[in-house]
C-alpha cells in the first residue's frame, strides 16, 4: 500500500468528519424526540404496564386512559375552549398586528417609530404584572371565565409578536409593488388587499399558526382568568401534573398531554417550510 496522495487524504478526513456530523445530528434528534415518543407510548399503556422495572417498550396497547379521562376531567369542553380561544386570539392578532406591522414598515406616521419601540419593549413585560390587574378588573366587570377575556388577554403578547414578524416581512417586499398600484389609482387599503396580502400569504399564515400555537399552550392567564366554563387544556394538565406529587397519575398526564400535543405537531409539520423561514426572518431581520 502506497501512501495516499494528500488530496485523497484530505477528502477522506472531511468525509469522516462529515459522517460524524451526520451521525451526531441523528443522535441528537433521537435524544430530543425520545421524551415525546415516551409520553405517547405511555398514554397507550395500562396502569400495570406504566409502573414497571425495567420500563416496558412492548405491551398490549389500550385506549382505556383516553376513554376514562375524556369523560372525567371535562377534556372535551376544555378542548373546545382552547380551540375557540386559540383561533379567536390568533385571528384578532393577525389582523390587528399585521395592519400595525404594515404601518410600521411602509406608512410614514409621526410617532410610529416610538410606538414600535414601546411595543418591542413590551415583549419584556412579565405576564404576572398583567395577570394580577387583569384578574381584578375582570372580576369587577364580571368578565372572568369568559372566552373573550382570554382572547383579549392573549392579544397582549400576540399583537406585538405578529407586529414585529410582519413588519420585517413587509420590509422585505419591494416597495414598487404598492407604489405602482397606488399610481394606478388603488387606495392604501386597495393596495394592501389586492397586492400585499396575496403575496404575503405564506408569511401571514405561518405567523397566524404560530400565534395560535402560542395561545394554545398558554397557562398563566388561563389559570388566573378562568375557572370552569372557559378553562383550557393547559390548566387541566397543570392540575394533573400537580396531582402526581401524591398520585402519580401518569396515564392521565400522558393521555391529555398527547391530545394537546398531537394536533399542534401535525399543524406545525404541515406548514414547516413557512414556519422555518418565518422564524428565521423574524430573528435575523427583527
Amino acid at each position, binding site marked *: 500500500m502506497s501512501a495516499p496522495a494528500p488530496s485523497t487524504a484530505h477528502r477522506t478526513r472531511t468525509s469522516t468528519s462529515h459522517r460524524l*456530523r*451526520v451521525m451526531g*445530528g*441523528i443522535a*441528537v434528534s433521537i435524544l*430530543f*424526540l425520545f*421524551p*415525546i415518543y*415516551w*409520553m405517547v407510548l405511555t398514554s397507550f399503556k395500562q396502569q400495570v404496564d*406504566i409502573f414497571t422495572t*425495567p*420500563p416496558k417498550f412492548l405491551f398490549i396497547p389500550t385506549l382505556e386512559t383516553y376513554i376514562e379521562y375524556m369523560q372525567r376531567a371535562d377534556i372535551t369542553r376544555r378542548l373546545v375552549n382552547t380551540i375557540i380561544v386559540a383561533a379567536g386570539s390568533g385571528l384578532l392578532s393577525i389582523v390587528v398586528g399585521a*395592519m*400595525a406591522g404594515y*404601518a410600521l414598515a411602509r406608512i*410614514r406616521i409621526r410617532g410610529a417609530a416610538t410606538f414600535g419601540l414601546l*411595543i418591542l*419593549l413590551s415583549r*419584556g*413585560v412579565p*405576564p*404576572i*404584572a*398583567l395577570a*394580577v*390587574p*387583569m*384578574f*381584578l378588573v375582570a372580576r*369587577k366587570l364580571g368578565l372572568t371565565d369568559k372566552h373573550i377575556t382570554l382572547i*383579549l388577554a392573549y392579544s397582549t403578547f400576540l*399583537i406585538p409578536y405578529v407586529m414585529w414578524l410582519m413588519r420585517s416581512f413587509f420590509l422585505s417586499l419591494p416597495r414598487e409593488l404598492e407604489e405602482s398600484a397606488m399610481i394606478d389609482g388603488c387606495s*392604501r387599503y386597495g393596495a394592501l388587499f389586492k397586492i400585499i396580502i396575496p403575496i404575503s400569504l405564506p408569511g401571514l399564515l405561518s405567523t397566524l399558526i404560530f400565534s395560535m400555537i402560542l395561545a394554545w*399552550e398558554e*397557562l*398563566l392567564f388561563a389559570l*388566573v382568568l378562568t375557572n370552569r366554563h372557559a378553562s383550557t*387544556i*393547559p390548566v387541566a*394538565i*397543570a392540575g*394533573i*401534573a400537580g396531582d402526581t406529587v401524591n398520585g*402519580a397519575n*401518569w396515564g392521565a*398526564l*400522558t393521555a391529555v*398531554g398527547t391530545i*394537546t400535543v398531537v394536533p399542534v*405537531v401535525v399543524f*406545525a*409539520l404541515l406548514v414547516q417550510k413557512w*414556519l*422555518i423561514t418565518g422564524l*428565521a426572518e423574524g*430573528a*435575523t431581520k*427583527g
Partner: protein
Amino acid sequence: MSTELAKETRAAPTRRRGRTGDLLVRWSFMVPAILLLAVMLAYPIFYTIDISFSRFDLSSFGAGEWVGWENYIEVMDDYRFWESLRVTMVYLVIALPLQVVLGFGIAFLINAEWAGRGLIRALFIIPMVVAPVVAGGMWRMILDPLWGILNYWLGFIGIGPLDWFGDPTLAMAAVIIIDTWRWTPFIVLIATAALLALPKDVFEAAKIDGANWWSTLWSVAVPLLVPVIAATFVIRWLGAVKMFDIVLAATYGGPGKATNVINLFIYEEAFRSLRFAESAAMAVIVLIVTMVLTGLFLYGSRKLEELF
C-alpha cells in the same frame, strides 16, 4: 395654460381634503393595535402600579387607601423575595448561554449535507410546539426517581438513583434540562438558517490560507454570526424571564423553595395568599428590572452588530 391653472385651483381643496383623509387612512392602520394594547397592556400596568402603592381592600377587591412605599419596603424586607430572585438568576445565567451554545452546535451538526437533512430539520420543530406545561409534566415522569426511565438508564452506567425532585441542586438541574429541551430546538432552527446564510467563499479562503478548524471557527464563523447570536440571545431572554409553566408542572418551586422562580412566587403570593398589594409591588420591581435589562441587551446587541 389658463385651463391648466383653473384645473389646479379647482383641484386644490379636494387635495387638501384628500390629505386629511389620507392622514386618517394612515392612522387607521395603527389605531386598532394602539387601542387594544392601551386597554389590555398599558392600563393593567398602571393599575398594578396603583395597587402597589395602596393597601389592598379585600372587601371591595380593589386598591384601597394610599400607603406610599409601604408595600415596597415590606417586599424588600422579605427574604423569600430575594431568594426567589436568586433562584431566577441562577436559572437564567445557566440556561440561556447553555441553550444558545447548544442550539448553534446542534445546528452545525444537522446542517451536514445528506439526504435526511430536511427531515431532521422538520423533526426539530416538534419539541418546540410541545406546550411547556406538557413538557414539565412529561419530564416529571421521565425523571421520576423511582419509576422514571432516565434513572433506569443512568443505573446502567453506575449513576444514581438520582433524586431529581428531592435534592435542591438536582431539582434546579431538572428544570434547566426541561427548559433546554423545550427551547433549544427553537434556537437550532434560527441558527440553521443563519449558518446556511453564511458566505461560502470566506471559508474557502480560510481553508486555502491554511487556517485550522478552530481558528476558522473563532476568527471567521463566530464574528460573522455575532449579530444573529446576539439577536437569538435577546429573543430567548424575553421568553426565559417569563419562566412559569415548566416549573409549575415539574417541581412547583420545590423542594422547599429551590426552584421557586419569581413568576411562580408572585403568582402564589397573589392568588393563594391573596396578598395583592405586595404582589403588585414585586411585579413592578420585576417589571422595571426586566425592562432595564431588556433595554441593555437590545442596546448591546445593536452595538455588537455595528462592531462586527
